[in-house]
């Protein structure tokens, strides 16, 4: 240890001697001066100026040691010192060991010394002899300058740390589009180290191609610099890195402008969107797959439906031939072999014929249902009132005890398939006719009204009515809500009506109560 502290004073001594309450916020200054009188004088001047003398040493070696140990805010350094090293060397060491500003305080102002001193980046140079005000001024400027520099460095560190720890790749360039900085993520993405990349033209590092066409794309930084606005890359851009690997990226570039609008450089933010792109592709694939499957299933269902309808139709057709035999041969037996059969045999054959007739009706109705399904629905303007009137006239031909009062609202016009709607009205009005047969004053109405902007047509009767408890069975094939003994029918009529209404994209429903008539409503 080079202990040449001839002053023997420490800052602590000074503080306790001169200040009632030690104040840590007062700048602490170390004096390096090998002339004791000068050192004492300097210390007292400093105290008068309101500073704390952290230490006063006389050699370069002691200066380095004490500076490292005490960390003063400032060092006043004499250049010529007793000992191995001079003030300039000591200042150099202090600068590299600890970030402490140094003011040279010397009688030497010759050029070589000045040049040497300059290299150490001093915060001031005061030539002896000096005035107190001069010293005060130099110290204050040095302290202030150092404080600003420290803040600046702190900000730089803060910025560098932020840029390094950010999740996106960041590339900064100078106004000439030369790389100035790559953060670690940008290094990883591009495959270039910041050291290798700095100074190169941005395009060397950032090779961008279209993900679809593989065509090279211009540097967005260059564009941002030229146009002085933020540029966002179009979708589907790949970055081809140093080793030739394509990485899907999403990015934007912006010019860095000074307060006065001068272009200081450009900055580009890169984001690796491999996962997002994969997820998007996956979603696209899934959607396409789903769509394809829907199309396939629809086609399959359509084919199945068509086949089923064809099948139904031919079954209904082919069933008639054996039925003709059953009925025909029964008839022949009844007519030509009456005596042999006896009353019971005749009764049985009569029942067989009745069964054949009923089955024939069922087959015919199924055929009608199949025909309605196969019929192509062609929409045009249809006057339902006219159709209802015609159907009513046909139905009125049949004999019955009490004539039906049939009321048709005039000019009920709809968009629909005429032949199909005629069949629907034939069934609805036919039912109304049928179920009013036992009523004293049968009344049947056809009309329409508008409900919530939709045209609703209706067929109303005052007949036997329906038990709405079974409403959901109303439109099923072969569903009957009345016994055959009460009213004839196979239970296909309303199924046909519902199918016709469905083919028009409409809806059908009923309102009724037993004995209170029924109203069937439909929309198209």
């Amino acid at each position, binding site marked *: 240890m080079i202990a040449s502290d001839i002053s023997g004073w420490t800052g602590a001594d000074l503080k306790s001697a001169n200040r009632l309450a030690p104040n840590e916020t007062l700048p602490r200054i170390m004096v390096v001066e090998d002339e004791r009188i000068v050192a004492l004088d300097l210390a007292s001047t400093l105290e008068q100026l309101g500073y704390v003398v952290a230490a006063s040493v006389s050699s370069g070696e002691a200066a380095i040691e004490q500076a490292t140990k005490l960390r003063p805010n400032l060092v006043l350094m004499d250049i010529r010192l007793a000992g191995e090293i001079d003030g300039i060397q000591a200042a150099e060491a202090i600068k590299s060991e600890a970030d402490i500003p140094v003011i040279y305080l010397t009688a030497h102002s010759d050029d070589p010394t000045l040049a040497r001193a300059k290299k150490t980046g001093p915060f001031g140079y005061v030539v002896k002899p000096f005035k107190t005000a001069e010293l005060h001024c130099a110290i204050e400027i040095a302290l202030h300058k150092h404080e600003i520099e420290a803040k600046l460095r702190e900000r730089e560190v803060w910025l560098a740390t932020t840029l390094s720890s950010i999740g996106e790749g960041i590339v900064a360039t100078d106004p000439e589009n030369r790389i100035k900085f790559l953060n670690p993520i940008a290094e990883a993405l591009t495959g270039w180290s910041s050291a290798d990349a700095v100074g190169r033209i941005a395009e060397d590092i950032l090779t961008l191609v279209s993900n679809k066409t593989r065509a090279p794309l211009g540097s967005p930084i260059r564009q941002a610099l030229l146009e002085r606005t933020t540029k966002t890359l179009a979708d589907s851009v790949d970055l081809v890195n140093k080793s030739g690997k394509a990485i899907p990226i999403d990015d934007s570039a912006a010019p860095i402008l000074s307060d006065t609008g001068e272009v200081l450089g450009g900055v580009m933010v890169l984001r690796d969107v491999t996962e997002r792109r994969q997820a998007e592709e996956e979603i696209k694939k899934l959607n396409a797959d789903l769509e394809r499957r829907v199309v396939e299933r629809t086609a399959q269902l359509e084919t199945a439906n068509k086949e089923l309808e064809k099948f139904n139709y031919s079954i209904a057709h082919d069933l*008639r031939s054996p*039925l003709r*035999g059953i009925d025909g*041969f029964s*008839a022949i037996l009844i007519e030509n072999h009456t005596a042999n059969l006896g009353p019971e045999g005749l009764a049985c054959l009569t029942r067989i014929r009745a069964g054949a007739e009923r089955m024939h009706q069922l087959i015919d*109705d199924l055929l009608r249902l199949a025909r309605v399904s196969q019929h192509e629905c062609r929409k045009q303007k249809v006057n339902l009132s006219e159709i209802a009137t015609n159907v009513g006239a046909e139905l009125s031909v049949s004999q019955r005890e009490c004539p039906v009062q049939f009321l048709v609202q005039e000019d009920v016009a709809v968009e629909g398939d005429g032949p199909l709607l*005629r069949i629907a009205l*034939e069934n609805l009005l036919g039912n109304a006719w049928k179920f009013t047969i036992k009523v004293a004053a049968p009344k049947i109405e056809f009309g329409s009204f508008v409900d919530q902007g939709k045209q609703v047509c209706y067929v109303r009767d005052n007949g036997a009515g329906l038990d709405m408890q079974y409403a959901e069975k109303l439109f099923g094939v072969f569903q009957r809500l009345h016994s055959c003994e009460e009213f004839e029918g*196979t239970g296909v009529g309303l199924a046909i009506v519902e199918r016709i209404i469905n083919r028009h994209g409409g809806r059908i429903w009923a309102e009724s109560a037993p004995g209170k008539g029924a109203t069937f409503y439909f929309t198209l």
Partner: protein
Amino acid sequence: MGHKLILLVEDDDNEAMLMGAALRKSGVAVEVTRAQDGAQALDILFSTDEKAVPTVVFLDLNLPKVSGLEVLERIRSEDRTSMLPVVILSGSSLEGDIRNAYRLGANSYVKKPVNFDEFSGVVKQLTSYWLGLNEPVPWSQVPKHRIETSARPQSSAAGTGR
């Protein structure tokens, strides 16, 4: 008038028997020759035996070997038979079948009723009409009438009061 002959072209034995029963029930004195398929029908029609030429042909459509429509086409294409009355008796009520039959020169198209009483009635009407003719007229001048399936109104309404 003289000799009346019906050529019944029908592959189904049951149907042929029912036709016989219906004819007997109608009481019309008539001889019936039966062909079991289209080829046999053509053999009979174009044999050298003059007597074999029928007064009227009752023709089924769905036949083995040569279809009813092909038989009809042959009948209309030959001078000797071009004026022969042909009545189609079929189980089909398909619009296409009916249209094709008339297009090829059928005089009548009858959809066979399932009910035997109705069928007998239709057969009686047909025989008395076609066999009552004194002499054949060209088929194009013969009044065409389509006998519908039954006495039921031709309503599409299902399950309405019958």
